[in-house]
């Protein structure tokens, strides 16, 4: 019994000791709470970053960079989007491909994924270029939404932002809303019925609802009308920033295509808003046409025409998209790269015979806008891949009016700014709206168009008269004036010439070209997003 008792006591002691030792582990919890870690380098949390008043403008700059750049590091290395090669993911490069490669104005020979399907009009909902365009558009929307969330009165109050900065931020907010409207317009034009998110939505795991094209039209219109008088007046803002002129221009474009988007024509509104643009003091310079697309196009005189530029710089605004692409990709064959201010061509983009034939006299046209390069190139395209099939185009170049290369001495990156909106487009929209019964005057329309043609011909030999004012003429004239400026697909659709009518080489993936089905007037919602976002319904035909 005694022995048992001792044993029992020993046992108890062991249990107590073991229990004590193991319980001690639990005490450690109070000592360690080092799991709340914050960034320690130049990255900052939202609360920390806006302690610096300059952060608001830097964020606004990011919204503009959303179109020209592909990430935080030039030319590549810290991409905004990671679903496709960074250089390919650039907004302007993708938008240009959507608007131009799908038409008679441009064809590309590369083997990058499904890129050739764009010109062949055989794309599917799995096309990565269409997918990345879509991702880029909604990245831009999310970015502007975040800007608007971070600049609400409540946030500014909480951060104690002073009155001067606050006033500036109100301008920024108007511009951010303009940029969002611009992107939603692109989305509506390309994809029709798209996910819809505003600053009232959160960031995170939710499924945005789908908005119908006509409803999105109303939203974009209401946004633009709301900021029309909040944004900086036309031609009064800093270079590169949007102003009232850009708002009017976008409203004009919205109304011009309203019938496509909503089935309700709004041509008289086109006249109203193009009149506002035209009356704002922009002018067609006396420089030759090609000066508009040179490295010094922000200073060489032609900038007086530009309503909203996308600014590039060979040293400070570097990417493999945007102007770098537009200058390099069309150079190949026997073209001398140094004539274009670059170190080598990418031998990709040419044009079709259909576009060449828009010019009387074709490559030898008296029209100064016929910027063809034909040495060693064939007009016809027997094979899509070789660069020498099809005439080359020398429009965007990285040299100034004297032929001097832009600021990047290596010849990689261009200084040339992209004229997103320019006066010539406003003139042509006015003329078209007039023809379509929106009001205005024939005389004005003719005067406006002749201003462009006098610049193109160098004299009045190319001038038109009122009897030339037909829809077909307008469609052709828009192509001659605005080719490769990312308008063509929208124009062809408005004129019903994009899919089930209208033929050009390699449309439908055959050399002579065939018509395609009309559902291709709208791009497919990418399969990836349909797979994730169960709120979405695919566009008809896909």
């Amino acid at each position: 019994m005694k022995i048992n008792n001792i044993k029992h006591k020993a046992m108890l002691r062991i249990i107590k000791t073991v229990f004590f030792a193991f319980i001690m582990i639990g005490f450690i919890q109070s000592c360690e709470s080092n799991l709340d870690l914050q960034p320690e380098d130049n990255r900052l949390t939202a609360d920390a970053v806006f302690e610096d008043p300059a952060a608001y403008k830097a964020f606004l700059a990011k919204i503009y960079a959303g179109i020209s750049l592909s990430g935080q590091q030039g030319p590549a290395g810290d991409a905004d989007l990671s679903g496709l090669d960074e250089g390919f993911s650039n907004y302007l490069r993708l938008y240009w491909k959507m608007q131009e490669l799908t038409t008679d104005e441009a064809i590309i020979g590369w083997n990058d994924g499904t890129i050739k399907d764009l010109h062949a009009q055989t794309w599917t909902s799995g096309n990565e270029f269409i997918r990345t365009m879509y991702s880029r558009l909604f990245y831009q929307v999310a970015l502007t939404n975040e800007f608007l969330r971070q600049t609400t009165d409540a946030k500014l109050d909480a951060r104690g932002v002073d009155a001067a900065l606050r006033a500036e931020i109100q301008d920024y907010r108007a511009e951010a809303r303009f940029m969002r409207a611009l992107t939603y317009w692109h989305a509506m034009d390309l994809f029709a019925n798209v996910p819809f998110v505003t600053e009232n939505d959160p960031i995170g795991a939710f499924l945005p609802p789908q908005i119908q094209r006509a409803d999105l039209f109303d939203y974009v219109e209401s946004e633009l009308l709301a900021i029309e008088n909040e944004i900086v007046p036309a031609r009064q803002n800093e270079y590169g920033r949007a102003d009232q002129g850009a708002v009017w221009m976008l409203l004009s474009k919205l109304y011009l295509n309203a019938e496509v988007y909503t089935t309700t024509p709004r041509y008289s509104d086109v006249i109203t808003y193009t009149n506002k643009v035209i009356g704002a003091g922009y002018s067609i310079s006396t420089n030759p046409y090609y000066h508009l697309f040179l490295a010094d196009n922000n200073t060489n005189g032609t900038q007086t025409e530009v309503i909203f530029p996308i600014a590039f710089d060979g040293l400070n605004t570097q990417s493999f998209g945007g102007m770098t692409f537009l200058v390099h990709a069309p150079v190949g064959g026997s073209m001398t790269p140094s004539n274009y201010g670059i170190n080598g061509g990418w031998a990709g983009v040419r044009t079709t015979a259909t576009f060449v034939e828009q010019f009387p006299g074709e490559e030898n046209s008296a029209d100064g806008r016929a910027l063809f390069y034909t040495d060693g190139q064939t007009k016809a395209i027997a094979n899509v891949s070789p660069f020498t099939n099809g005439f080359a185009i020398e429009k965007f170049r990285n040299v100034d009016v004297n032929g001097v290369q832009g600021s990047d001495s290596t010849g990689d990156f261009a200084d040339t700014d992209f004229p997103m909106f320019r006066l010539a487009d406003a003139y042509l929209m006015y003329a078209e709206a007039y023809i379509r019964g929106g009001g205005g005057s024939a005389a004005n329309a003719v005067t406006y168009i002749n201003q462009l043609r006098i610049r193109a011909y160098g004299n009045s030999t190319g001038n038109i008269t009122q009897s030339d004012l037909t829809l077909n003429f307008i469609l052709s004239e828009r192509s001659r004036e605005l080719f490769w400026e990312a308008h063509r697909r929208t124009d062809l659709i408005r004129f019903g010439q994009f899919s089930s009518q209208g033929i050009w080489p390699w449309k439908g993936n055959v050399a002579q070209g065939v018509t395609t089905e009309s559902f291709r007037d709208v791009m497919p919602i990418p399969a990836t997003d349909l797979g994730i976002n169960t709120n979405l319904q695919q566009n008809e035909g896909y």
Partner: protein
Amino acid sequence: MKTFLNSLLVLLFFIPSILLAQSTVSGTVTDKANALPLPGVNILVKGTSVGTTSDFDGNYTISAKSGDVIVFSYVGFKTQEITYNGQSKLNVTLTEDAAQLDEIVLIGYGSTTKQDATGAVEKISTEEFNKGAIVSPEQLLAGKSAGVRVTSNNGAPGGGSEIRIRGGASLSANNSPLIVVDGLPLDQRGVQGVRNQLNAINPNDIEDFVVLKDASATAIYGSRASNGVILITTKKGSANTPIKFEYDLKASSSQVNDYVDVLDATQFRAIAETDTNYNASLLGNSNTNWQKEIYQTAIGAIHNLTVSKGYENFNYRINYNHTSQQGVLTGDLYERNALNLSFVQRLLNNDLKLTLTTKGILDDNKYADNGAIGAAVAFDPTQSVYNADGTYFQYTGENLAPINPVFTLENNNNRARNKRNITNFNLDYKFWFLKELTFNLNAGIDYSELNGKQFNAARPTNSASFPYKNFYSGFNRNTLLDFYFNYKNNLELINAKIDLTAGHSYQEFFIKSKQTETETATTLVVRTPVINRNALESYFARVSFDIADKYLISASYRRDGSSRFGPKNRWSSFPGVSLGWKLTNEDFLKDSFFSSLKLRAGWGKTGQQEIGANYGYLGVYTPGRNDASVQIGDIFVNTLRPEEFDENLKWEETSQYNLALDFGFFNDRLTGTVDAYYRETEDLLATVPTPAGSNLSDLLTTNVGSVLSKGIELSLNGELAKSENFNWDLGVNVTLQENKITKLSLGNDPNFLIAQGGISGGVGNNIQLWREGLDPSTFYVFRQVYDNAGNPIEGAYVDVNGDNQITEADKQAYKKASPDVFAGLTNTLTYKNLDFSFTFRGSFGNYMYNNVASDRGNITTVNNAPGNYYPNAHVSVLSTNFNNQNLFSDLYLQRADFVKLDNISIGYLVPGEKITFRASLTATNVLTITKYDGLDPEISNGIDNNFYPRPQMYVLGLNFTF
């Protein structure tokens, strides 16, 4: 925390010395057969509950009175009873009883024996290691363990490997096992600036690897254990051993024995001449094999000098290693100078053991520009390397043309030195009043400092280009503090052994990187340093019972917190349970056909947080660089970007079931294990497309979907011959496995896919896909159509959806890069002092996409360069006659089953009184049997593109011990 620990240490060290009053006896238990110390021997004062076990070095201490009978028992050995008569020292030798010596196996925060292990745990020791001049430790393991696949990344000297235990448990997050060196878990991301972070561990210094495969074994490492754990134990001296010197040399010579099949000058010229704008002046008159020009015979030497000695209470081991290995790509060099020290001090009658291991490594790399490999494949074979005047031939003014690869290797220079120290201090203390209770404290640091310089010559193809200089530096710091209590005892009342462990661990990782690089011809720009810090905190516990030496039960629990998740989701729990039944200890199987038989079953849950991003739950803003700024007015404004985030980011969790049978026949001359597992990962951390508009990027790392893997692993080890003069051991392991994605998105579209596996040829092209129901390495291709003669018809593919067009929609998921079955075979023969061994490794059911052929096997490659030059094509163009790239044709997808004779080695030992000498000859990467046409059938992602070839190597080994 600090004060707490200090007082704890005071308590542990000093109190016992004051209170010590009882008479104690200590000594060493050794094996009679080889005089090696025996760890884990049960020592008991007969008729009492006073007992202990011998430690790793066979040492023990026990309290006893004169006249007590002390019982020494150990599985596999004859039990010895000795009557104690007051002596302070009692050394005991045990004689082997059964054939099998039961080994101690580490299992993470403790150890068990092979017999008592209930999880899928495998130990691979020195004698089983691969032979050859091995620079990287993981190569010792290749082909040695079922379920473990080690694939070297390429043939670069000191290059890393992809290690997969039971496939990978994740998709985008880390799929590599956790590697723990002497108790210190390494950073799973590696350290910056080295080819392979494991090179910090000298292969010569490794005692053994323990591979923890199933979750019941790994759950104790909870947060980082989903992909298995590899515990590396380095060699330490042992007590009471005379001073021993060892010098080991491995001198090697390696060369490339196969090249990518490109056109020779004649074949090439014939195609160039078909160009419609053929320009003969662009071709030369040579017949250059450009690949031969860039590779060299590489020389290497590995020296190891080791000194060790053991005193009664102290032992040390000092190893100096010098490794120098040239790469076969000219100019590539790996060098290592390492000093590895270990000290073990025993105090307080062996109750306190202090172990310090420290490694100082200078890891020097000269990185040859791997771009030369692609350029050599693409370069016009009619051109000579040098012009008549001795200058390099170049395509001056052709910016997109390849650069002469010999020029590149000669002129571009990239050197980096990584200074690294891995130190681990371990304290193991047995409580004076309760010997069965031990306290173990582990403090470790892994600090590495990088300094690198890169110089690239101006691009000779572009006269405006300027040289590029890049100075990069930084450091990685990984600090660990963990401790645990362990209680082990025999509960005689219920005829059971109990083993309890509980502890706490805190580990922090800090990384800083700096860079200064050329921005314009004349300026260097200092980049903003990048800093990353993350931390893990854990509590863990394990309890094991061994009832009647028949039934084993083990349960573990770990609670982990990671700084990578928000406070709401920060902590998660990872339990594991396993059972074992030693059938041969049951009466009904006592004298059966089996000499040992054990059934094991386990289940466990493990986690994953190794997703790369540290602040994925927190919205952060990243400033833009000057070269990505925007013109506003007359100034360029640097941008500010809000990053994507998922505030609900949480742990990925893997559940794994394991069922296994360990068996032995013929007195355990033939032993084996069959393991079957089923593993499911949920809340998968994957980088997947976000719903457009919902976040600030197109892809986001978030918790989505699940993957499943299952497999069967078999390993057999036989001592086919066993005698004094002749021994023949054969080991075979076979693994069958299957992985598939079971869910991939929040939606429910079964056709939802994410493109994977970027390839060359165009930009943004992918050849693989993730889709529900498929292995994650599945290829996504068009099915090629052939004419009646069996030749492929260019551009003709099976029109799967029947719409008379070949579009994206006609691509099919077809074959995969991962094998269905892989196996290893190790053979060792010794006859007297001669030994002979070889290792075969095989892989079956895996396919390879020949990207060099698909990218370059066409006429357009030669004739449609974006400039005035003709690049070379892959020979497949001669059989396919393809004009254009047909990147997605399944023609380029080939069966890549292989059997490789990894190494074959012969050695002779000259024993001597004072000096032992061994010489060996080894050949590695000897033979590959495969049907695959490309360079190597073993490329981990299944995409063969400009692969750095694995050389064949011949090694002379010399070893002196005295």
